[in-house]
């Protein structure tokens, strides 16, 4: 996944170095020359196959099997049932289908809000820290802390903070400040969604901050100076200089953040201890419950494949739209 985190630098391509004229005399054509690129690519291809492609294919195959505890030890004995798992899990009239749809909407709302807030915080902090001032490095390091912490340690701490009776949040809100009369629950009921969102934004915004900060380094200072001479204020400069210059970064950042958040498993799993409340039943947890907790890996896989297809469509549409806009601007 890390492949997509580097900001593209298409606009700053250097002239191609090492033109043929400067190379030493060409080697004679032969099998070695034609093999070399493939040899260099081989490790990446093997890993890619092993880590992504083969499990994906296996996942699709699993989704067509009745893979329950009776067959888990020897998959070849599992009956092939075609699209039955899809029919059962995607049938919106059944309890399972309704829950999946509910979980889908929850996840969509969670992803959009989480990415939105994370981006907003990221861009604000990046713009504030754009100009050098005393203490900037310390603030930068501090802002990146949530991203550097191991996810388990960080989220477990949140779950302690959010306990109703012993958590620090209620201690401060109820006991110290007296803002609320009764101790609210943060990890069950309606509040659980917002708790999850806060933890997610807290974890993700430093990544947005990091990418946007890197993107801002590429904005030439002269553009701001020119804009200032033209009488542009802060907001105008932000709208007309900063944001357009950050477009390539945002393009990747928003997509990747969305996909990560949509697939987020660790945060709800650690925060709620395996089974999330209905109001925060993210799709990844839902799939985990459907396969591991009920030992029905076939329908779990069917849900995963359906989700994969959905995310592919979202990614494709997103890229097509952004691509067209870019072409329009060009």
């Amino acid at each position, binding site marked *: 996944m890390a492949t997509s985190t580097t900001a593209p630098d298409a606009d700053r391509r250097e002239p191609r170095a090492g033109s043929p004229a400067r190379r030493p005399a060409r080697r004679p054509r032969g099998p070695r020359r034609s093999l070399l690129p493939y040899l260099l690519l081989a490790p990446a291809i093997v890993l890619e196959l092993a*880590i992504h492609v083969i499990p994906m294919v296996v996942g699709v195959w699993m989704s067509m099997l009745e893979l329950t505890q*009776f067959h888990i030890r020897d998959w070849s004995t599992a009956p092939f049932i075609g699209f039955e798992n899809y029919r059962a899990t995607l049938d919106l009239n059944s309890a399972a289908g309704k*829950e999946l749809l509910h979980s889908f909407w929850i996840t969509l709302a969670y992803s959009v809000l989480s990415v939105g807030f994370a981006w907003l915080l990221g861009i604000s902090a990046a713009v504030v820290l754009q100009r050098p001032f005393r203490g900037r490095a310390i603030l930068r390091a501090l802002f990146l802390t949530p991203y550097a912490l191991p996810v388990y340690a960080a989220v477990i701490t949140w779950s302690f903070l959010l306990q109703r009776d012993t958590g620090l949040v209620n201690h401060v809100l109820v006991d110290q400040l007296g803002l609320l009369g009764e101790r609210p629950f943060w990890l069950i*009921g309606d509040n659980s969604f917002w708790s999850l969102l806060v933890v997610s934004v807290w974890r993700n915004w430093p990544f947005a901050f990091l990418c946007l900060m890197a993107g801002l380094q590429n904005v030439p200072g002269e553009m701001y100076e020119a804009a200032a001479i033209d009488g542009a204020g802060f907001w105008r400069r932000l709208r007309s200089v900063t944001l357009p210059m950050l477009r390539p970064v945002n393009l990747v950042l928003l*997509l990747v953040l969305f996909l990560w958040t949509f697939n987020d498993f660790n945060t709800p799993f650690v925060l709620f201890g395996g089974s999330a409340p209905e109001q925060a039943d993210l799709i990844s947890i839902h799939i985990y419950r459907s396969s591991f907790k009920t*030992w029905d890996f076939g329908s779990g896989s069917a849900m995963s494949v359906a989700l994969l297809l959905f*995310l592919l469509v979202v990614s494709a549409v997103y890229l097509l739209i952004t691509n067209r806009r870019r072409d329009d601007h060009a």
Partner: protein
Amino acid sequence: MSRRHLGIFTAAVLAAASLTACGGSGDDSAASPKTLTYWASNQGASLEADKTILQPELDKFEKQTGIKVTVEVVPWSDLLNRLLAAAASGKGPDVVNIGNTWSASLQATGAMVEFDDATLQAVGGKDRIVPAALAAAGAPGKPPAAVPLYSMAYSLYYNKKSFADAGLTTPPTTWEQLAEYGKKLSTGGKWGLAIEGANPSENAHHAFTFSQQYGGEWFDSAGKPTFDTPQNVSAIKRYIDFMAADKITNPSNAEYAQNQSVSDFANGKAAMLLWQSAGSNLKTQNMPADAYGVAPVPFLASPPAGGKKVNSMVAGINMAVFKHTKNKDGALSFVKFMTSDEEQTLLNKTYGSLPAVKTAGSDPAFSATEQKTIQETLVTTAAPLPQVPEESTFETLVGTAMKELFADAASGKPVTEASVKAKLTDAQQKMR
């Protein structure tokens, strides 16, 4: 689509695909005949405490047989998943502890060594084992998939001082009494009954007992689920109502899944607790044995037609051997060692449970009040959970439905017959 976008799209595909690409975890099955890997369940106050308790015994076994056993204590929250992963991958430990209620579910995977008469003979013989415990080691009519290790049952633990302060002299014997006593005990920030509301297994165990008392069953004779029968609805509602209607349970208990209810009882925040062999845990939390009383779990004052006199499941821990072991003889001799009179006495004494073999019950430690109550329950009023392959799924689905009902009760939403039935119907629809 430009090349750059194609690149981004490919990366996005891979990021999206990471969800489908979850694989099993490889593990360390002992290859040499002189070593064994053992997954122990968490019986003591902590994983570390268990390791300290077990290590000297494993050293003893190594001295006797030359086989070195590497132990890992697995927390309950992970144990079933890890067993399932080991069963699926054919890799993992040689010998494991399992919750006895999972026996038939794990047996159905075909990954466990079957203890037919010859195999049972190799670990000491069938006749030594307590019959009720052996009945909870696999599906009826099949050779057991495991051997009983520790025997337990639910009891009612009550705080003597809180009872005396409230003017109560004897523990409740009916649920109606328990609710009434609970109300007297729920004052001044203290509560009547502590419940592990967010722990699906714990919930499911109570679902079984209450259902039995109301004349219900979770599976019919053909093994089909019967979750949303009127009896089961009444049973679940009775249990949730301790928080929802009687208000003798702190709403916070809806969040409890890490034995906080035991801590609340030990700290005097709650006056009653329904638990299996809580004594050793209470001791580590500095609650002396004379501070609490132990009594049988209550019954309904007037049971409906068909109601059974059952107040606990046959609880316990079984020991199983994976078929994939490369050292089956060594594994069986380890099972034999752990179920020997000496080890049974020593370990069950430490954990406050009862020996699963008849020949090890003579130690005076097993005639303490707590152990006597457990013994009496096991002999007279305990019944095994249904030994069907879907048992573990029942625990998860019904236990989770109850967790959600507790969450409703805690946040002030009404818990009605209709809402209970809806949850149970949903749970049943998810059974395959």
